[in-house]
């Protein structure tokens, strides 16, 4: 399958390990990513200020994809959620679509819709499938134990994610991890929010939320926490040192992106997969896999 790769703001600047591993794993599994140099921010950062601004900015990106006749594949939960939600809202509210198109007209753009938007994990789950991934694995990650973290906008609102995964009993990321041969750690705060959404308003509140999962995952003995969103990464990797100090957590929780884990199982090297950019090093995990 072919899709436009939507990088958003954070991944292409701060999370090149996620981007490079997503591109390499997609290529190995027969997904063709095309880049589009006109994409920009998805509009999510403006939603608290003006929902209509968010719709207009999201629609600009959707209109670009529509012109190319391709669906969008996003790496960030917030980008995937915002663009999918905007498409859903515009497709169901003709008056808002008309309003947005008046704003897009001076840019030479128009959104007719529908345009499909999926997270990379959803594309892996629905287009490639767990069985095909298992068949493509050349280096099963035996002996590796990792904890999945879905992130809120991956699962909710369920109006957008129904038919893919369930916010109550999520299973797709666990399934994708199991396909690599790694074991999935079971822990009670699986569905906890990372807190990233309030980091800009209250660092204390955001850190208090992230601390719950970090302490929980540290207790499982997992070799890493597996993420699929750069916002969650800001909290669990970027804020980890501060949080660990605040709550007296003496065990580090390595943080990795799912395509990095998948890439190892597909035989790619940790160097190719950008592991040198992981700030809390998954040394034990890499020792088990690469020796």
């Amino acid at each position, binding site marked *: 399958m072919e899709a436009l790769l939507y*990088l958003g*703001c*954070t991944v*292409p*600047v*701060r999370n*090149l390990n996620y*981007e*490079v591993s997503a*591109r390499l794993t997609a290529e190995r599994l027969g997904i063709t990513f095309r*880049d589009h*140099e*006109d994409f*920009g*921010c998805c509009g999510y*950062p*403006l*939603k*608290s*200020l*003006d*929902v*209509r*601004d968010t*719709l*207009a*900015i999201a629609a*600009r990106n959707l209109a670009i994809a529509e012109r190319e006749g391709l669906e969008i594949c996003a790496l960030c939960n917030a980008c995937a959620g915002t663009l999918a939600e905007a498409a859903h*809202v515009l497709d169901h*509210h003709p008056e*808002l679509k008309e309003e947005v198109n008046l*704003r*897009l007209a*001076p*840019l030479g753009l128009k959104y007719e819709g529908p345009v499909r938007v999926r997270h990379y994990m959803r594309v892996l789950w629905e287009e490639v499938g767990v069985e095909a991934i298992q068949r493509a694995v050349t280096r099963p990650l035996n002996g590796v134990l990792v904890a999945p973290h879905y992130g*809120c*906008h991956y699962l*909710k*609102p*369920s109006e957008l994610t129904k038919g893919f995964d369930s*916010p109550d009993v999520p299973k797709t990321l666990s399934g994708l991890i199991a396909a690599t041969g790694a074991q999935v750690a079971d822990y009670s705060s699986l569905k*906890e*929010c990372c*807190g*990233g*959404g*309030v980091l*800009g*308003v*209250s660092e204390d*509140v*955001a850190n*208090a*939320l992230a601390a719950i999962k970090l302490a929980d995952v540290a207790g499982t003995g997992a070799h890493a926490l597996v993420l699929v969103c750069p916002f969650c990464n800001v909290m669990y990797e970027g804020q980890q040192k501060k949080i660990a100090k605040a709550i007296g957590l003496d065990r580090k929780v390595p943080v990795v992106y799912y395509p990095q884990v998948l890439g190892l199982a597909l035989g790619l090297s940790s160097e190719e997969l*950008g592991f040198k950019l992981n700030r809390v090093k998954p040394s034990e995990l890499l020792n088990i896999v690469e020796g």
Partner: protein
Amino acid sequence: MSRINLNDLDPSFKHRVAEQPGGQGIKACFACKACTAACPITAVDARYDPRKIIRMALLGMTEEILHSDFIWLCSSCYGCQEVCPQNVSFTEVMFAIKNLAAAEACVPPGLTGQRLLLKAHGRLYEISDFENEKREKMGLPRIKEHPEDYDALLG
């Protein structure tokens, strides 16, 4: 909280919220508190309480809501609206309330800063030559900024 004076209440507030995109459901709330029970923010900071915010909005405590710090504590996790038996999209209601506060310039400084970044770069992070050189070293394509489109859209 101090005593509520009925004469100070603004019965139009709930209608203003309901007119915003996503704010429509607010009037269906029957105060069961499922939203608060599901809220991860309430669990770590009692200042933020979804049910209380809805009651305040329905009563018409406009000033207390729009000038509060707590409305900005929503992490937009959507936990509340997943459990609402009345299908109130409370995360969207919160966006509607924050939009009304923003229209009255009651906004945390970080959020207005993000708007300026989008107008200047079309992205939250500036793409300098340094960024593109780093990308090229890893075999990744260069990225372009489109500030003119974002500036035009945001006026």
